[in-house]
């Protein structure tokens, strides 16, 4: 009878949608209950079978081409219109560069960090902070394939105090990216990775001044990707993890 209450939540557990604490209790129960673990195994098999069977239909190359041509044609401009616009744009650029480049860049970066901090806090407060739960970078990295429009490397953590908890997809200003969560001395650190050219705002590598956010942060651009590291760990730990990523990239 006791198992009935476990089994009622089994699908939610296998979807990774129960709170972390309950997840651990569930793990322990499954290890000791042959009936529930057999049930869990058969449900996982069905989930996998649905996943494979569900990827059934592929669009034709012709339809792909038609959609590209009909829905997403690039706006064209006439030659004269182009010249006029180019001249106007140049003028605005010259004036704008001298007056607002630094300020704009600065506030863009701060705004991005503000959003990054929100994402970090919201994710850690979530009952299921990660969609792929694994300490193995060789499991986490491939999980993102096909979900985000770029690839990235994850650092080797052997002989370091960092451990990978998992990852999830995220969005910054409509731009899809990867969100990885690490643990160091019971502090959680988020690493966000986005395609630099996809971000609507050009960002500088200067993180917000200490005190502006309640977290320690770093950001840099490397190989066309924009990295953000944020967490309540010490500045040294944030820098340590950032260095590992820089080396791996």
């Amino acid at each position, binding site marked *: 009878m006791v198992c*009935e209450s476990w*089994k*009622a939540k*089994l*699908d*939610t557990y296998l*979807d990774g*949608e129960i709170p972390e604490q309950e997840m651990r209790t569930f793990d322990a129960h499954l290890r000791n209950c042959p009936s529930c673990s057999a*049930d869990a195994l*058969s*449900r996982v*098999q*069905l*989930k996998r*079978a*649905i*996943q*494979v*069977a*569900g*990827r*059934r*239909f*592929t*669009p034709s190359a012709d*339809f*792909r081409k*038609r*959609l590209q041509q*009909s*829905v*997403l044609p*690039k*706006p064209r*401009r006439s030659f004269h*219109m182009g010249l006029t*616009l180019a001249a*106007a*744009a140049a003028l*605005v650029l010259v004036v704008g560069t001298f007056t607002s480049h630094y300020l704009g860049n600065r506030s863009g970066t701060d705004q991005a960090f503000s*959003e990054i901090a*929100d994402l970090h806090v919201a994710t850690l407060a*979530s009952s*299921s902070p990660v*969609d792929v739960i694994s300490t193995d970078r060789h499991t986490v990295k491939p999980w993102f394939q*096909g979900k*985000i*429009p770029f690839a990235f490397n994850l650092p080797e953590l052997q002989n370091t105090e960092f451990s990978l908890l998992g990852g999830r997809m995220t*969005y*910054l*200003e*409509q*731009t*899809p990216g990867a969100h990885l969560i690490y643990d160091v001395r019971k502090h959680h650190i988020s690493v966000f990775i986005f*395609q630099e050219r*996809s971000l*609507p705002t050009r960002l500088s590598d200067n993180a917000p001044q200490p005190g502006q956010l309640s977290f320690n942060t770093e950001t840099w651009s490397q190989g066309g990707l924009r990295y953000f590291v944020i967490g309540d760990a010490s500045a040294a730990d944030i820098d340590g993890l950032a260095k590992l990523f820089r080396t791996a990239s």
Partner: protein
Amino acid sequence: MALSGANLQLDSFEELAIPLFDQLYNFAHWLTQNREEAEDLVQETYVKALKGFSSFQLGTNFRAWIYRILRNTFLTSRKGLKVTMTVPLDFDEEDEGPEPAIERDTPETLLLARSSHELLQKAIDELPVHFREILLLCEVEEMSYQEISETLAVPIGTVMSRLSRARQTLRNQLRPHPQQETGPQITRGTNHGL
């Protein structure tokens, strides 16, 4: 400048929307059960999404947003309207709560033993559309409950109970019935037995 702004917007839209093309088509085909209708649905979705892209809220989930457009477009199509007449898509399931998922038999094992990839596809195909869509969003698109909630515009509690019922219905369909020798029991296009 306006043109370059439009270009920038189009570029952003393309970068977000094009990687989802195959998935959207697959989902559309499952909903419409027809290639031509799936193509029309995807095309209309992209047109609507591009048109409404300026109103897309920064920082929100683009995938859930465009899937919601696709689903709403389907529901207002002729076939979608027909489906909603037989299956109440927005009925409130929350009061009933998730069904206890207690299995005495293991249709999953039977399914695998019979190597029934096609049987499973058929069973998914024959699910009522509101069960089919939530199962695909969860298992194939690997959406979180939160994303599914945003896509279907229903509370997370409803996502959980509907998903539970969808799985239960699928398991029932996959379980061989003694009176049937030819295959699983299937109730097409209705919500019988829900």
